[in-house]
Protein backbone atom coordinates (compact mmCIF):
# COMPACT_ATOMS: atom_id res chain seq x y z
CA UNK A 1 0.00 0.00 0.00
CA UNK A 2 3.04 2.25 0.14
CA UNK A 3 2.53 2.67 -3.60
CA UNK A 4 -1.20 3.45 -3.48
CA UNK A 5 -2.88 5.50 -0.79
CA UNK A 6 -6.30 4.10 0.14
CA UNK A 7 -9.45 6.21 0.06
CA UNK A 8 -12.06 6.64 2.75
CA UNK A 9 -14.62 3.88 2.29
CA UNK A 10 -12.18 1.33 0.86
CA UNK A 11 -12.52 -2.14 2.36
CA UNK A 12 -8.89 -3.16 2.64
CA UNK A 13 -9.28 -6.01 5.15
CA UNK A 14 -11.42 -9.05 4.44
CA UNK A 15 -10.87 -12.62 5.61
CA UNK A 16 -13.04 -15.59 6.50
CA UNK A 17 -12.09 -18.26 9.01
CA UNK A 18 -13.10 -21.90 9.52
CA UNK A 19 -15.73 -22.76 12.17
CA UNK A 20 -14.52 -22.60 15.79
CA UNK A 21 -14.09 -26.08 17.24
CA UNK A 22 -13.49 -27.36 20.77
CA UNK A 23 -10.10 -28.54 19.55
CA UNK A 24 -9.20 -24.99 18.44
CA UNK A 25 -10.13 -23.65 21.89
CA UNK A 26 -7.96 -26.29 23.57
CA UNK A 27 -5.02 -25.41 21.32
CA UNK A 28 -5.52 -21.70 21.95
CA UNK A 29 -5.61 -22.30 25.70
CA UNK A 30 -2.10 -23.74 25.49
CA UNK A 31 -0.71 -21.48 22.78
CA UNK A 32 -1.89 -18.23 24.37
CA UNK A 33 -1.20 -18.94 28.01
CA UNK A 34 -4.84 -18.15 28.82
CA UNK A 35 -5.79 -21.17 30.89
CA UNK A 36 -9.18 -19.90 32.01
CA UNK A 37 -11.20 -23.16 32.18
CA UNK A 38 -14.37 -21.42 31.01
CA UNK A 39 -13.17 -21.88 27.40
CA UNK A 40 -12.30 -25.58 27.56
CA UNK A 41 -14.06 -27.22 30.51
CA UNK A 42 -17.81 -27.58 29.95
CA UNK A 43 -18.43 -28.40 33.62
CA UNK A 44 -16.78 -25.16 34.69
CA UNK A 45 -18.66 -23.18 32.02
CA UNK A 46 -22.03 -24.59 33.13
CA UNK A 47 -21.30 -23.89 36.78
CA UNK A 48 -20.57 -20.29 35.75
CA UNK A 49 -24.01 -20.05 34.13
CA UNK A 50 -23.14 -20.62 30.46
CA UNK A 51 -24.68 -23.36 28.29
CA UNK A 52 -21.29 -24.47 26.95
CA UNK A 53 -17.69 -23.37 26.56
CA UNK A 54 -17.14 -20.39 24.27
CA UNK A 55 -14.27 -18.81 22.38
CA UNK A 56 -11.60 -16.70 24.04
CA UNK A 57 -12.17 -13.08 23.04
CA UNK A 58 -8.47 -12.91 22.28
CA UNK A 59 -8.69 -15.85 19.85
CA UNK A 60 -11.28 -13.85 17.91
CA UNK A 61 -9.12 -10.72 18.14
CA UNK A 62 -6.19 -12.87 17.01
CA UNK A 63 -8.14 -13.74 13.86
CA UNK A 64 -8.95 -10.06 13.34
CA UNK A 65 -5.26 -9.25 13.75
CA UNK A 66 -4.41 -11.91 11.18
CA UNK A 67 -6.89 -10.42 8.71
CA UNK A 68 -5.37 -6.99 9.40
CA UNK A 69 -1.75 -8.07 8.84
CA UNK A 70 -2.70 -9.89 5.63
CA UNK A 71 -3.41 -6.38 4.34
CA UNK A 72 -0.98 -4.25 6.33
CA UNK A 73 2.59 -5.10 7.39
CA UNK A 74 2.78 -5.55 11.20
CA UNK A 75 5.43 -2.79 11.41
CA UNK A 76 2.89 -0.26 10.07
CA UNK A 77 0.25 -0.85 12.75
CA UNK A 78 0.30 1.96 15.30
CA UNK A 79 -2.68 0.89 17.40
CA UNK A 80 -5.25 -1.89 17.41
CA UNK A 81 -8.25 -1.96 19.71
CA UNK A 82 -11.55 -3.72 19.99
CA UNK A 83 -14.68 -4.09 22.04
CA UNK A 84 -15.98 -7.60 22.59
CA UNK A 85 -19.62 -7.04 21.66
CA UNK A 86 -20.93 -10.58 22.04
CA UNK A 87 -19.74 -14.03 23.06
CA UNK A 88 -18.44 -16.14 20.15
CA UNK A 89 -20.02 -19.58 20.29
CA UNK A 90 -18.67 -22.94 19.15
CA UNK A 91 -19.19 -23.46 15.43
CA UNK A 92 -19.05 -19.74 14.65
CA UNK A 93 -17.74 -19.00 11.16
CA UNK A 94 -16.09 -15.62 11.46
CA UNK A 95 -15.61 -12.95 8.83
CA UNK A 96 -13.27 -10.05 9.58
CA UNK A 97 -13.42 -6.76 7.71
CA UNK A 98 -11.72 -3.40 7.85
CA UNK A 99 -12.82 -0.19 6.16
CA UNK A 100 -10.86 3.05 5.88
CA UNK A 101 -12.75 5.74 7.79
CA UNK A 102 -10.27 8.60 7.90
CA UNK A 103 -6.90 9.71 6.54
CA UNK A 104 -4.91 11.66 9.09
CA UNK A 105 -1.52 13.17 9.76
CA UNK A 106 -0.27 12.13 13.16
CA UNK A 107 3.13 11.58 14.76
CA UNK A 108 4.81 13.15 11.74
CA UNK A 109 3.44 10.61 9.25
CA UNK A 110 0.42 9.93 7.07
CA UNK A 111 -1.91 7.46 8.69
CA UNK A 112 -5.27 5.83 8.05
CA UNK A 113 -7.91 4.94 10.57
CA UNK A 114 -9.72 1.67 9.96
CA UNK A 115 -13.05 0.51 11.37
CA UNK A 116 -12.82 -3.22 12.04
CA UNK A 117 -15.55 -5.79 12.55
CA UNK A 118 -15.77 -9.49 13.15
CA UNK A 119 -19.14 -11.08 12.42
CA UNK A 120 -20.39 -14.64 12.63
CA UNK A 121 -22.30 -16.53 9.92
CA UNK A 122 -25.55 -14.85 11.06
CA UNK A 123 -24.10 -11.39 10.65
CA UNK A 124 -23.94 -10.82 14.40
CA UNK A 125 -21.13 -8.48 15.38
CA UNK A 126 -18.72 -10.16 17.79
CA UNK A 127 -15.95 -7.59 17.76
CA UNK A 128 -16.05 -3.94 16.80
CA UNK A 129 -12.69 -2.24 16.72
CA UNK A 130 -10.30 0.19 15.21
CA UNK A 131 -6.75 0.28 13.93
CA UNK A 132 -4.47 3.14 13.03
CA UNK A 133 -1.91 2.30 10.37
CA UNK A 134 0.97 4.21 8.82
CA UNK A 135 0.65 4.64 5.06
Amino acid at each position, binding site marked *: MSSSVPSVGDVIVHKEFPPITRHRLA*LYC*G*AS*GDHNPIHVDIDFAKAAGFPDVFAHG*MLVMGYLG*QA*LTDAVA*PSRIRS*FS*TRFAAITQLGAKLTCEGTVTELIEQGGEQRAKLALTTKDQNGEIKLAGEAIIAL
Partner: protein
Amino acid sequence: MVDQSAVGRAFTPVTARVEPGRLRFFLDTLGETNPVYRDEAAAPVPPTYLFCLEMMDATVPFEFLTALGIDLARVLHGEQRFDYHAPVVIGDTLTFHPRVASVTDKKGGAMTLIVVDTPVTNQNGIHVADVSRTIVVRNARPS
Protein backbone atom coordinates in the same frame (compact mmCIF):
# COMPACT_ATOMS: atom_id res chain seq x y z
CA MET B 1 -17.14 -5.94 44.93
CA VAL B 2 -14.14 -4.04 43.61
CA ASP B 3 -14.25 -0.33 44.46
CA GLN B 4 -12.25 2.82 43.76
CA SER B 5 -9.59 1.83 46.29
CA ALA B 6 -8.25 -0.55 43.63
CA VAL B 7 -7.34 2.29 41.26
CA GLY B 8 -3.59 2.69 41.02
CA ARG B 9 -2.87 -0.73 42.38
CA ALA B 10 0.12 -2.32 40.64
CA PHE B 11 0.81 -6.02 40.25
CA THR B 12 3.98 -8.08 39.99
CA PRO B 13 5.85 -7.19 36.78
CA VAL B 14 6.07 -10.08 34.31
CA THR B 15 9.18 -10.75 32.23
CA ALA B 16 8.68 -12.82 29.09
CA ARG B 17 10.94 -13.82 26.21
CA VAL B 18 9.66 -14.05 22.66
CA GLU B 19 10.61 -17.67 21.95
CA PRO B 20 10.38 -19.05 18.40
CA GLY B 21 8.91 -22.43 19.39
CA ARG B 22 5.97 -21.16 21.35
CA LEU B 23 5.37 -18.37 18.85
CA ARG B 24 5.13 -21.06 16.15
CA PHE B 25 2.52 -22.89 18.29
CA PHE B 26 0.48 -19.67 18.45
CA LEU B 27 0.77 -19.09 14.68
CA ASP B 28 -0.22 -22.68 13.88
CA THR B 29 -3.18 -22.51 16.27
CA LEU B 30 -4.53 -19.49 14.40
CA GLY B 31 -3.81 -21.04 11.01
CA GLU B 32 -1.49 -18.11 10.36
CA THR B 33 0.52 -18.69 7.16
CA ASN B 34 1.77 -15.14 6.51
CA PRO B 35 5.52 -15.57 5.75
CA VAL B 36 6.33 -12.29 7.55
CA TYR B 37 6.02 -14.16 10.87
CA ARG B 38 8.13 -17.18 9.88
CA ASP B 39 11.57 -15.60 9.64
CA GLU B 40 13.03 -16.87 12.89
CA ALA B 41 15.93 -14.41 12.69
CA ALA B 42 13.85 -11.26 13.08
CA ALA B 43 10.11 -11.93 12.72
CA PRO B 44 7.71 -9.43 14.29
CA VAL B 45 5.13 -10.77 16.70
CA PRO B 46 1.43 -10.84 15.70
CA PRO B 47 -0.58 -7.82 16.92
CA THR B 48 -2.28 -9.58 19.86
CA TYR B 49 0.69 -11.65 21.01
CA LEU B 50 1.80 -9.24 23.75
CA PHE B 51 -1.35 -10.16 25.65
CA CYS B 52 -0.35 -13.83 25.50
CA LEU B 53 3.27 -13.31 26.54
CA GLU B 54 2.19 -11.63 29.74
CA MET B 55 -0.14 -14.51 30.62
CA MET B 56 2.33 -17.24 29.67
CA ASP B 57 5.09 -16.03 31.94
CA ALA B 58 3.13 -14.64 34.86
CA THR B 59 4.42 -16.29 38.02
CA VAL B 60 0.96 -15.89 39.56
CA PRO B 61 -1.71 -16.66 36.92
CA PHE B 62 -4.60 -14.16 36.96
CA GLU B 63 -2.87 -12.30 39.81
CA PHE B 64 -4.96 -9.15 39.38
CA LEU B 65 -8.15 -11.17 39.80
CA THR B 66 -7.09 -12.98 42.95
CA ALA B 67 -5.52 -9.82 44.38
CA LEU B 68 -8.82 -7.96 43.91
CA GLY B 69 -10.91 -10.89 45.13
CA ILE B 70 -12.59 -11.52 41.77
CA ASP B 71 -13.89 -14.97 40.86
CA LEU B 72 -12.50 -16.04 37.47
CA ALA B 73 -15.88 -17.57 36.59
CA ARG B 74 -17.49 -14.11 36.76
CA VAL B 75 -15.13 -12.37 34.38
CA LEU B 76 -15.62 -11.51 30.72
CA HIS B 77 -13.26 -9.61 28.45
CA GLY B 78 -14.85 -6.28 27.60
CA GLU B 79 -12.29 -4.39 25.56
CA GLN B 80 -8.69 -4.70 24.50
CA ARG B 81 -6.28 -2.12 23.15
CA PHE B 82 -2.67 -2.15 21.94
CA ASP B 83 -0.55 0.91 21.16
CA TYR B 84 2.71 0.01 19.44
CA HIS B 85 5.67 2.35 19.86
CA ALA B 86 8.65 0.25 18.70
CA PRO B 87 9.17 -3.15 17.03
CA VAL B 88 8.98 -6.39 19.03
CA VAL B 89 10.76 -9.33 17.40
CA ILE B 90 11.74 -12.93 18.16
CA GLY B 91 14.43 -13.04 20.82
CA ASP B 92 13.28 -9.92 22.65
CA THR B 93 12.78 -10.02 26.41
CA LEU B 94 9.83 -7.91 27.49
CA THR B 95 8.71 -6.67 30.88
CA PHE B 96 5.05 -5.95 31.59
CA HIS B 97 3.99 -3.54 34.34
CA PRO B 98 0.24 -3.99 35.00
CA ARG B 99 -1.69 -1.41 37.02
CA VAL B 100 -5.39 -0.70 37.61
CA ALA B 101 -6.35 2.46 35.69
CA SER B 102 -10.06 2.68 36.49
CA VAL B 103 -13.00 0.96 38.14
CA THR B 104 -16.55 1.76 36.94
CA ASP B 105 -19.84 0.32 38.10
CA LYS B 106 -22.49 -0.33 35.44
CA LYS B 107 -26.14 -1.24 35.48
CA GLY B 108 -26.65 -0.26 39.11
CA GLY B 109 -23.75 -2.38 40.30
CA ALA B 110 -24.70 -5.51 38.33
CA MET B 111 -21.40 -5.18 36.50
CA THR B 112 -18.05 -3.61 37.25
CA LEU B 113 -15.65 -2.60 34.49
CA ILE B 114 -11.98 -2.70 35.47
CA VAL B 115 -9.30 -1.26 33.19
CA VAL B 116 -5.77 -2.58 33.64
CA ASP B 117 -3.07 -0.61 31.77
CA THR B 118 0.23 -2.34 31.10
CA PRO B 119 3.27 -0.49 29.71
CA VAL B 120 5.73 -2.89 28.08
CA THR B 121 9.49 -2.35 27.90
CA ASN B 122 12.16 -4.43 26.16
CA GLN B 123 15.64 -5.64 27.17
CA ASN B 124 17.11 -2.23 26.26
CA GLY B 125 14.63 -0.32 28.38
CA ILE B 126 12.72 0.90 25.32
CA HIS B 127 9.00 1.46 25.87
CA VAL B 128 7.72 -0.73 23.02
CA ALA B 129 3.97 -0.82 23.67
CA ASP B 130 1.04 -0.09 25.91
CA VAL B 131 -1.50 -2.82 26.46
CA SER B 132 -4.86 -2.04 28.01
CA ARG B 133 -7.53 -4.54 28.92
CA THR B 134 -11.02 -3.93 30.22
CA ILE B 135 -12.60 -6.76 32.11
CA VAL B 136 -16.26 -7.05 32.95
CA VAL B 137 -17.12 -8.57 36.31
CA ARG B 138 -20.64 -9.98 36.56
CA ASN B 139 -21.40 -9.21 40.19
CA ALA B 140 -23.46 -11.51 42.34
CA ARG B 141 -27.00 -10.27 42.99
CA PRO B 142 -27.30 -8.79 46.45
CA SER B 143 -29.34 -11.18 48.59
